């Protein structure tokens, strides 16, 4: 053969790739679909997240989002205004709140022309009385559309447009709420004429500020966070010093209605990235294990090729081509699906949760790297490590089929079980590496399934617990003490402090001053000593404290710090709370000896003048966290559980297939000895069944604790707390998921075993 001819010879081993792909079509298609679907969803997620993130980030400048807002109990005086305007421009952002029904209310503003400008998504802004433009998400959840009539506070309005307010991208009615609530709370814009009509009733005097650029000062966007924070503090101090009647003060970085969306986008992204890489690592190991099985099967061929001069590197590259090829093609297909199909699913998911402004799709190079290049690299590294450990054996060992590293390991002595049971146990012991991988896969699928199945029952349980432990059906927080004559009403004091412990989120903690012999808190054991308080169990869980520890809190507006010893804990599922008796409360916070500012009551207290009520908390308010979380997770959770089932089926199928293939000779031989297909299947399929069953049993408590930690990491980012709870039936469901996966796989395996011919054993001997 001349050099020209020689040059024409490409590595003939490459010709095997397509044939191996075809021979293992089932396995390769299953892994391909799984990777493509996972990457498709995640790539779609990255693209949508990136595009929406850009729209969200851009909205700060595009819609000129405020640097903060404060609410006063009256209109701001010229004197205070003048002092604040040394630092920032002040914009009226007055609003009223009108109820659609008992459960839903709308916060109504007039058009904002300078700060927090309105994004009109569809239709137009109202220009006449009795017209309103409503938040798109709230309208969607309330089944309202342009042209519909909506009754707000007894007045009918025609809906002229769908809007998004950039300072309400997450519909928080109160910045201290644990969760936004687009089902029960919305925002709207009316014409100036319409707003004028409200001024005779209750108006909330809210003002936005924007640090100004006058007198040679920089524009607020050019200031550092520290500089802005300093100015925001000056504004707050001015309001306090001037006794402006401050009801609420929220600097823009602390405003959940503005920032929750952005933070959620960030945390979602890291969550799906971790999910992607865990799945790719598991699939890479499965690929590696199935390839090891092929290598073992082709041991003599590899020995011959190595003896003929093929290097270890050439063999390694050859066996790595297929997994990398499948991963790369699946990644590319996944990316195409991501940009074309899944992106819209994720966009819908965001639009169903947040009141976002309009967006444009941005092509994302990072997404391509994270969903194509990195998975391929993970696949290469895992396969390289696993296959190299096998292919580094000498050619002679391959020729002799002597591939066990620990040749001298003695046979494990088994208890005197029946012969069939010992046979099955031997199969499990022989295939231990496969079954360990099976366990890891089932554990991971179990964690996913647990997450998918536990959240809705957890939220419902939390809702039930809140209702069952509610202290009165109504809680009225007053602007000033108002005496009423109603047996049902019990005075109490409510205030709020913020957590001031290092390394923890600055959460609002409700502080209760409770009357001695309280009817509503009859089971609480309040301390009499000066420094001890009772805290809700949520406080202990969230900050990892215990009875006897100290808790540091401070006033949000004055920065006055307080330190209490935790004397006892109290089951109070509403969230983070500190309890003390009312006298202690007045003493600690230096209040008049008869001061109170709230009523707890089982009945509606109509005798209190509406103007004197700061907030009325009902059962619905208590349940809005549950309701919104249910809304946000509701659609995603069954998908996650379904994904976990698919993953279980895939893992159990691929790994048990390896076990069957590895034992083809032995299966053929026991058939020759006279065992029926049914008996053989019982031996080999049941062995996998035992392994799957044990994996499921062991993985349930592990999943529980892993999920507990993950849940803590997830919840700790929220303001407030919902305790970890797994409904017992969920464990049964997670276990059933593995059993169902196994039953599906067992049917395939039975067919596979049936098809193994008896002469297979003889063929292997011939080799």
């Amino acid at each position, binding site marked *: *053969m001349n050099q020209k*001819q*020689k040059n024409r*010879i*490409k*590595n*003939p*081993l490459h*010709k*095997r790739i397509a*044939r*191996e792909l075809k*021979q293992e079509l089932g396995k390769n298609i299953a892994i391909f679909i799984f990777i493509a679907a996972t990457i498709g969803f995640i790539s779609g997620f990255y693209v949508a997240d990136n595009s929406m993130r850009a729209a969200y980030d851009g909205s700060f400048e595009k819609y000129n989002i405020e640097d903060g807002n404060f609410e006063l109990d009256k209109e701001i005086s010229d004197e205070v205004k003048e002092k604040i305007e040394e630092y920032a421009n002040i914009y009226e952002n007055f609003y009223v709140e009108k109820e659609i029904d008992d459960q839903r209310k709308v916060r109504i503003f007039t058009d904002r022309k300078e700060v927090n400008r309105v994004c009109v998504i569809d239709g137009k802004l109202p220009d006449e009385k009795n017209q309103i433009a409503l938040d798109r998400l709230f309208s969607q959840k309330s089944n309202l559309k342009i042209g519909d009539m909506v009754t707000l506070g007894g007045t009918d309005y025609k809906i002229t447009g769908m809007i998004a307010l950039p300072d309400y991208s997450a519909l928080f009615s109160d910045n201290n709420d644990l969760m936004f609530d687009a089902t029960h709370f919305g925002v709207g814009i009316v014409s100036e004429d319409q707003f004028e009509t409200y001024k005779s009733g209750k108006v909330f005097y809210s003002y936005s500020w924007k640090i100004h650029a006058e007198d040679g000062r920089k524009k607020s966007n050019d200031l550092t966070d520290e500089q802005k924070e300093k100015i925001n503090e000056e504004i707050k101090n001015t309001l306090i010093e001037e006794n402006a009647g401050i009801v609420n003060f929220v600097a823009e970085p602390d405003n959940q209605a503005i920032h929750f969306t952005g933070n959620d986008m960030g945390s979602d992204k890291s969550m799906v990235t971790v999910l992607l890489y865990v799945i790719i690592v598991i699939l890479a190991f499965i690929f590696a294990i199935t390839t090891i099985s092929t290598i073992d099967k*082709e041991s*003599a*061929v590899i*020995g*011959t*090729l*190595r*003896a*003929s*001069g*093929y*290097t*270890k590197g050439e063999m390694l590259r050859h066996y790595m081509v297929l997994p990398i090829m499948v991963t790369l093609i699946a990644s590319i297909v996944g990316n195409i699906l991501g940009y074309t199909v899944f992106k819209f699913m994720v966009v819908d998911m965001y639009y169903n949760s947040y009141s976002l402004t309009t967006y444009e799709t941005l092509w994302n190079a990072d997404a391509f790297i994270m969903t194509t290049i990195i998975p391929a690299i993970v696949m290469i590294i895992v396969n390289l490590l696993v296959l190299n450990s096998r292919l580094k054996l*000498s*050619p*002679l060992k391959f*020729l002799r089929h002597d591939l066990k590293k620990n040749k*001298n390991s003695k046979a494990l002595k088994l208890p005197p079980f029946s012969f069939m049971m010992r046979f099955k146990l031997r199969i499990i012991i022989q295939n231990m590496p496969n079954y360990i991988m099976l366990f890891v896969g089932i554990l991971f699928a179990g964690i996913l399934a647990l997450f998918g199945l536990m959240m809705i029952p957890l939220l419902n349980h939390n809702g039930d617990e809140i209702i069952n432990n509610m202290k009165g059906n109504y809680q009225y927080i007053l602007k000033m003490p108002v005496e009423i004559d109603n047996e049902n009403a019990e005075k109490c004091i409510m205030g709020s402090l913020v957590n001031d412990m290092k390394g923890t989120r600055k959460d609002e903690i409700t502080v209760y001053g409770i009357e001695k012999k309280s009817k509503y808190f009859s089971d609480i054991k309040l301390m009499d000593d000066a420094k001890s308080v009772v805290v809700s169990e949520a406080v202990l869980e969230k900050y990892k404290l215990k009875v006897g520890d100290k808790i540091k809190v401070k006033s949000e507006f004055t920065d006055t710090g307080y330190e209490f010893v935790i004397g006892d804990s109290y089951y109070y599922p509403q969230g983070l709370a500190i309890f003390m008796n009312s006298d202690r409360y007045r003493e600690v916070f230096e209040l008049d000896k008869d001061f109170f500012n709230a009523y707890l009551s089982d009945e509606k207290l109509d005798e209190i003048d509406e103007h004197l009520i700061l907030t009325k908390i009902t059962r619905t308010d208590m349940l809005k966290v549950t309701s919104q979380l249910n809304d946000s997770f509701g659609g995603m959770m069954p998908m996650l559980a379904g994904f976990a089932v698919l993953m279980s089926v895939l893992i159990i199928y691929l790994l048990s297939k390896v076990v069957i293939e590895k034992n083809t000779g032995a299966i053929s031989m026991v058939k020759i000895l006279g065992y029926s297909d049914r008996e053989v299947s019982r031996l080999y399929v049941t062995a996998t069944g035992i392994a799957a069953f044990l994996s499921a049993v062991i993985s349930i408590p592990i999943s529980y604790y892993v999920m507990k930690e993950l849940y803590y990491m997830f919840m700790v980012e929220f303001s407030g707390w919902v305790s970890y709870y797994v409904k017992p039936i969920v464990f049964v469901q997670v276990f059933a998921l593995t059993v169902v996966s196994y039953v599906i796989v067992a049917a395939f395996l039975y067919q596979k075993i049936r098809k193994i011919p008896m002469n297979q054993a003889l063929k292997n001997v*011939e*080799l």
Partner: protein
Amino acid sequence: MFLKVENLEKSYKTGDSSVKVLKGISFEVEKGKICVLLGASGSGKSTLLNIIGGIDTADAGTIIIDGDKLEKMNEKATSLYRRNHLGYIFQAYNLIPNLTVKENIEVGAYLSKSPLDIDDLIKTLGLWEHKDKMPNQLSGGQQQRTAIGRAVVKNPDLLLCDEPTGALDYNTSKEILALLEEVNEKYQCTIIMVTHNDALKQMADKVIKLRDGQIRKEYVNEVRTKSQDLDW
């Protein structure tokens, strides 16, 4: 001298004990000759062949092939030596099941800087009408021919055959031996063949009989008998 083996020793450990399988083997083979290593099971003949082939290592002694000392080579150099100089044939044909006859032969050709003409070789092997078949469509003899083709196509200096007819019937065995003779004559490669079939000693230029890891008898046949005339 093409191949020179001097004082070769090899032991295997089994559990706590050690078994010496080669006890100071020394012999020489000239280029282009056929050398048959005879011996019963456990005599050390396959171990000797594997050490010459660089897929096993000796505890002591020297192997020089065409001037190159084998024991001085590291793993990479040994692999290169096998790639450039050796062809291997085993009792089990060890063909790649999802490559055709021609492609299996190409697997050998790919390794060589100066491979033989593949089509010509396939004709010599008598496999022309089977060249596009998969190994499972071939008889044992045809599979072994393919394995010989894969080893020979590299145009190796040294062809190592470990019981090449061990799994074949009488007639097929004779065909394979004739093919090896033809290859030896046509391509001038040196052949070292391990067998326990005593009759094959007559087709060799040199015969070495091994027992318990030692050479019991070593002689040269002045006249080689054609494999077609052998009987056993």
